[in-house]
């Protein structure tokens, strides 16, 4: 209730001003990020669920946006949200190009997901840990990604919808210092979108 009243005042008393606004929502996992909104009169930080601000309002004048207003203004945009990408983490037996048995079992699941989606695109991205040089790790990640890509030769998806790449050691799953062995970072991420 404490938040509701200022919201009503802001939204209805400033009737002739520009009503462009931003509202923060929780992520899928329930965590809440942050949004900075910078207009002519300063920057407002949004960091709570349903926190909103008029884009050209003075700094700090945030308010809670009701569920009803969110549905009224954004119902159609929200209904158009694409299905969340499905991401598989694939791992190799130590030192080789052989997938672990768990990861091998994921391959048919990935194929099924590609077939299930109406207009799929697919990326296969190789990753390493931080042992070794940046360049060597990009090359190693690409080798891993290309090995996985071959397993999808029979997938029902146009080749130009498959992206094979390497992030080397620049997109760690488990953050570590340089030159740190970390098996969980030596992976291929396969994303079906």
């Amino acid at each position, binding site marked *: 209730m404490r938040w509701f009243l200022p919201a009503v005042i802001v939204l209805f008393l400033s009737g002739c001003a*520009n*009503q*462009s*606004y*931003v*509202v*923060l*929502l*929780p*992520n*899928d996992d329930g965590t*809440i*990020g*942050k*949004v*900075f*909104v*910078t*207009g*002519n009169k300063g920057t407002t930080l*949004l960091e709570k669920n349903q926190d909103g601000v008029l*884009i*050209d309002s003075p700094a700090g004048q945030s308010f809670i946006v009701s569920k009803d207003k969110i549905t009224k*203004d*954004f*119902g*159609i*945009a*929200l209904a*158009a*949200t*694409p*299905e*969340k*990408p499905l*991401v598989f983490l694939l791992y190799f037996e130590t030192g080789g190009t052989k997938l672990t048995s768990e990861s091998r079992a994921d391959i048919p699941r990935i194929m099924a997901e590609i077939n299930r989606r*109406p*207009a799929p*695109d697919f*990326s296969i991205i190789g990753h390493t840990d931080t042992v070794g040089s940046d*360049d*060597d790790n*990009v*090359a190693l*990640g*690409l080798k891993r990604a*290309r090995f996985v*890509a071959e397993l999808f030769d029979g997938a029902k998806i146009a*080749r*130009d*919808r*498959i*992206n*094979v*790449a390497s*992030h*080397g050691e*620049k*997109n760690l799953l488990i953050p570590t210092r340089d030159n740190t062995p970390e098996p969980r970072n030596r992976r291929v991420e396969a994303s079906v*979108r």
Partner: protein
Amino acid sequence: MLKLRLLALFAIFFVSAGSSFAQNNAIGYVKTVQGNATVTGGGQSVSAQLGTPVQIGSVLRTDKLGSMGVTFKDNTIISLGPNTEITVDEYLFAPERDELKLGASMTRGTLNYVSGIIAKLKPEAISLKTPTGIIGVRGTHFLTKIENED
């Protein structure tokens, strides 16, 4: 040593170039469409359909009954409500070269944004320009409504 490294780089280049997995310049694809929606780029406007590619510079538009959703290569998701226009000005997704950027500008309508890998690796690389201000994110999900007074 330098020679070896150069050789390795060339090898990577040629192996990638010869790959049977042809790359294209799409940075994302249309995944949902209702009513009339278009993707305009390079002076050409196409009616948005499932699988229509989005490229750097693409302008996404919906009419008063339209809506559209796009998923980008880094798993960023956006969806547009009716009577909306948004341009993808910049998009870089090459963490291995420290190249990360997602810059868009929106002139009208309603937008739903769900962050992807670019926001995770470099939050300050994301920006959405609007006629009255700029929205920056720190790995998150937000909605924005832009009223255009023209």
